[in-house]
């Protein structure tokens, strides 16, 4: 089946904050595993509870692969938790 990698990789993120937009905050660019990724679109952003802490999930794409970025609001750290780039087949 297709490749989809689950991970918990720390990321350095540049995020935008603007009230009144669809999302008040969204990642613009991030670096993980020595790779720099520019966010082309935020597909969906939503909050979840994990071990009692609030995390914000951002499902995003750079046009080549889809990523999931998570912001742990208790520790104010970002992680990439999924990368999926299995779309060349078609």
């Amino acid at each position, binding site marked *: *089946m*297709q490749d*989809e990698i689950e991970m918990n990789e720390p990321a350095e993120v540049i995020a935008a904050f603007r009230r009144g937009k*669809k999302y008040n905050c969204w990642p613009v660019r991030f670096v993980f595993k020595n790779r720099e990724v520019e966010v*082309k*679109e935020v*597909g*969906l952003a*939503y*909050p*979840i*509870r*994990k*071990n*009692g802490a609030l995390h914000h*999930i951002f*499902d995003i*794409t750079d*046009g080549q*692969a*889809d990523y999931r970025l998570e912001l742990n609001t208790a520790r104010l750290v970002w992680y990439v938790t999924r990368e*999926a780039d*299995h*779309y060349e*087949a*078609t």
Partner: protein
Amino acid sequence: MKPRDLPLNTDLSLIMHIDLNSCFATTEQQARPLLRDRPVAVVNRRTFHTAIITASYEAKARGVKMGMKVNEALKLVPELIVVETDPQKYHFVYKKLLGIMRSYSPNVVMKSIDEGVIDFSDTHRTINTSNLWAIGIEIKQRLKGEVGNYMKCNIGIAPNRFLAKTAAGMNKPDGLTQIDHNNLYDQFTKLKLTDLTGIARRNEAKLHAVGIKTPLDFLNTDEMTLSRLVFKGKPGRDWYRRLRGYEVDAAPTKMGIVGRQYVLESKGLSREEVLRRLHFLCQSTAEKLRFKNKQARGVVVFASPRRFSKGWGVRYLAKEPFCSTEEIYEKVKTLFASAPAAAEIRIIGVTCYHLSDLNKRQPHLWDIPVGLNESLNSTIDAINYKYGSHSIQVADTLGLEKIMKQKIPFGSTRYFELI
């Protein structure tokens, strides 16, 4: 007026049925832009033998259906992208949809994860004075604005719940359809009997037996035939009224059973290992019972060699109601003693029945002190709700939460908060 002369209901259409199109697949396509316009199947476990829960429109157009195994679907569509369910994502979309719907009327009932009904009967004159067609268009726009541009929903408007759901099933995807006395006959000519909610193969066969071949034939059949020959009594009379646009489905559905089943992850598990998994199912069932503020008196344990086969099952009806894991497991363990050999079992399940509202129980003379069980259960539930499910669990089941993940059941929203 005699019942058989009942005309079509000419009341205003004030029931709106909203159905998210291929909900999980569309949500995945919204969240992951590179999946858009591609055939996508959503499954609970990414294996070749798992059943597809939902498929995107692109996959459906090429023959992929709900319930089909992944390997069969891949034969039809080799480039099919298979993704696992993500309950929290769907929970978010569900809450958004519910919020939008509730902003129009307090009379909202969600029928499943992806569909719900707004009853405008009490709010139309004061709050929602614009016509329902305009509100339908607005809801579609709000769904796109508040969740995402790729989200689509089908909306049906009618004077009763049945016709509204029928309308929501037409013009997919992203349709908006109204059925009322003006166009009922026209709309019914576009449908098959099995397109009507509540008419599957068995009922279709019953209708065929009396010469009813189409929805129009059904509509034109008199009440006597339906109630005496086809559906026997009240169900027949209900169908007669339902088809004419009168409301017969407004009463809330009553919860009759609570339970969970599990397909064993591998063959050759020992009897003790199967019992541990049953213990885990008892824990989930007890959580669900308490979440719904219910207690049960009956419990069924079943085991079968494969899905949909009859297998083995026994039941027990206790005198006193119960709702804790250990009370359920104690009974299940005793019942399971007569089960077939573990090697023959593929699927196990626990179901509680004879439900009543959870209240203070009459303490048993020799039981543990009054209220201790209840307060222990509620404390465990509160901790698990706050810190995540299985933060506290029965020691016998430790580690099983990683194997026996609670997945999305087909359609139900009853225990969404517990996932």
